[in-house]
């Protein structure tokens, strides 16, 4: 088992390096001079050259990458051009809000997804199955940013029950788990939860159907096990795959929150990314994407290890 974990961790190193390379290259695929955001329009040639040297843009690309990576490894992702604050601090503060949103959405999406998936798979081809599958397909097909707008229209504009934007009363930056704050979390969390809900439903439904059609289930029933007992075996057999899918979905929610956060002005990493893009704040853009991608890689790693812990067959593959 330890050998498997070690092998998985070693395998992650080249991935992390390539991710860093992609993030580094992002700045260099941008059209125009990377200095354009800091350089005054009427700057002289000498000033431009000075600044280029100060930022290290005059060195060869591989050297620039090496220096950038070395700094990044020490937690220095540069300073934001727009605010002048360290990128890492800005990103981490925003990520904590995104994590709050993703966890709330995961609780909603995964519970409904597991529930609908198990029921649909168990009562396959009945009207219950058709209804659950219908909800699942709607969940994965809905443009979630539009769903967010519709929820705002119904619950904020028309019913006036819940706030439409923000993450706390009076635009306060500090999150707290009290009703005054949770009110702001409900609509964005529901909006974020529909895609994972749909995907978990579809996965669990397929898994349940497959497991129930296997011979060992027949044997369990033949030996007189009650249906609740059979159900326990279904859950046990579906768990590793379901867990992997849910881990991946959690990663998607953390990394892909920009649309929902834009709709609800939720002060997370997505909204930060949005402002970085439109203010051409390249260090911030680069840093945010790097941190989010690393989160995703680490999450995938932990899911793989957790999966191998539950199901010993996996580590042999």
């Amino acid at each position: 088992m330890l050998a498997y974990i070690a092998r998985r961790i070693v395998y992650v190193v080249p991935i992390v390096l390539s991710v860093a390379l992609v993030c580094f290259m992002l700045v260099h695929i941008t059209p125009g001079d990377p200095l354009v955001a800091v350089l005054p329009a009427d700057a002289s040639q000498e000033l431009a050259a000075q600044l280029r040297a100060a930022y290290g843009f005059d060195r060869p690309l591989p050297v620039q990458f090496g220096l950038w990576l070395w700094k990044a490894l020490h937690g220095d992702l540069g300073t934001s051009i727009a605010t002048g604050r360290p990128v890492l601090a800005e990103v981490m503060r925003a990520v904590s809000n995104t994590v709050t949103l993703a966890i709330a959405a995961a609780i909603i999406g995964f519970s409904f997804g597991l529930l609908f998936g198990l029921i649909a798979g168990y009562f396959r081809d009945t009207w219950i199955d058709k209804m659950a599958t219908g909800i699942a397909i709607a969940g994965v097909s809905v443009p979630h940013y539009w769903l967010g707008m519709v929820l705002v229209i119904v619950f904020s504009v028309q019913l006036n029950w819940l706030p439409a934007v923000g993450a706390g009363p009076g635009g306060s930056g500090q999150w707290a788990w009290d009703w005054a704050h949770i009110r702001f979390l409900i609509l964005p969390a529901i909006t974020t939860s529909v895609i994972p809900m749909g995907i978990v439903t579809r996965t669990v439904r397929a898994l349940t159907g497959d497991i129930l059609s296997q011979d060992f289930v027949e044997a369990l029933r033949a030996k007189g096990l009650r249906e609740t007992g059979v159900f326990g075996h279904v859950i046990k057999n579906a768990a590793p795959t379901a867990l992997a899918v849910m881990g991946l979905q959690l990663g998607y929610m953390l990394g892909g929150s920009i649309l929902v956060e834009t709709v609800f002005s939720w002060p997370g990493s997505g909204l930060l990314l949005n402002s970085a893009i439109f203010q051409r704040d390249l260090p911030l853009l680069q840093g945010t994407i790097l941190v989010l991608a690393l989160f995703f890689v680490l999450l995938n790693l932990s899911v793989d290890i957790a999966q191998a812990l539950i199901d010993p067959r996996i580590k042999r593959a």
Partner: protein
Amino acid sequence: MSLTASDAAPQTAPAGKARGYWANVGRRLIRDKIAVACGIILLLIVLAAVFAPWLHLADPYQGSMIRRLKPIGTANYPLGSDELGRDMLARLIYGGRLSLFIGVLPVIFAFMIGTSLGLVAGYVGGKVNTAIMRTIDVFYAFPSVLLAIAISGALGAGITNSIVSLTVVFVPQITRVAESVTTSVRNMDFVEAARASGAGAFTIMRVHMLGNVLGPIFVYATGLISVSMILAAGLSFLGLGTKPPEPEWGLMLNTLRTAIYVNPWVAALPGVMIFAVSICFNLLSDSMRSAMDIRN
């Protein structure tokens, strides 16, 4: 004489069988009520978008300061008017042109690139496979929405950049599917027979394998159109796609966002179009999957 007969036999047999297979798939699809309904809805939306100039619609760019945000059902404005007093019906139909274009094109590009890469990786195997598949793994280290935003955001706003970024997002996914299908086909007897008869690698891939791997990849790609429509409109919604006053569903949703306090249901209409196209492609893809009896 006997030699030519045996030569012809393996060539005609798969072709005849293939025709029967596709006829069966077609028959199963036509019997599937959901598939037919989705096909008709998509066809109507596409035809309306293509033939929009001949449909006697209002000018989608012509605004009116005194007729802004009319509700659905107003005289001369069957679906109301937008924040600049432009006819919503005309803008929704014209909007289909750009929205479908930027939503479907990345999947078509990715289908062509990914199938080629996957076919080569799966057939050649060895170091080539490792090189292609490990490069693909790097893109899997990014959540797809984040990757699309990162590339689009770095390249800047614009239709071309949005299509490029989505193509980059979908190529790895299609390559993985193509590679796994190719690997499973490559050791089958008929490929072995073609190789024994002296066919070159390119001929084997093009003539003998492509037809056998294309079906599953195609079905997978159809399912991706749904995601692509949502993401393409999403990029426009963020301001990374097309520019106003161009009618495009994602951008319309964005510019109408402030109107939800005045006329909420008109503001929500462009999203209904994205939803309809996306769910129809998803259901159609599911139906094709079961008609072609593809598992996973």
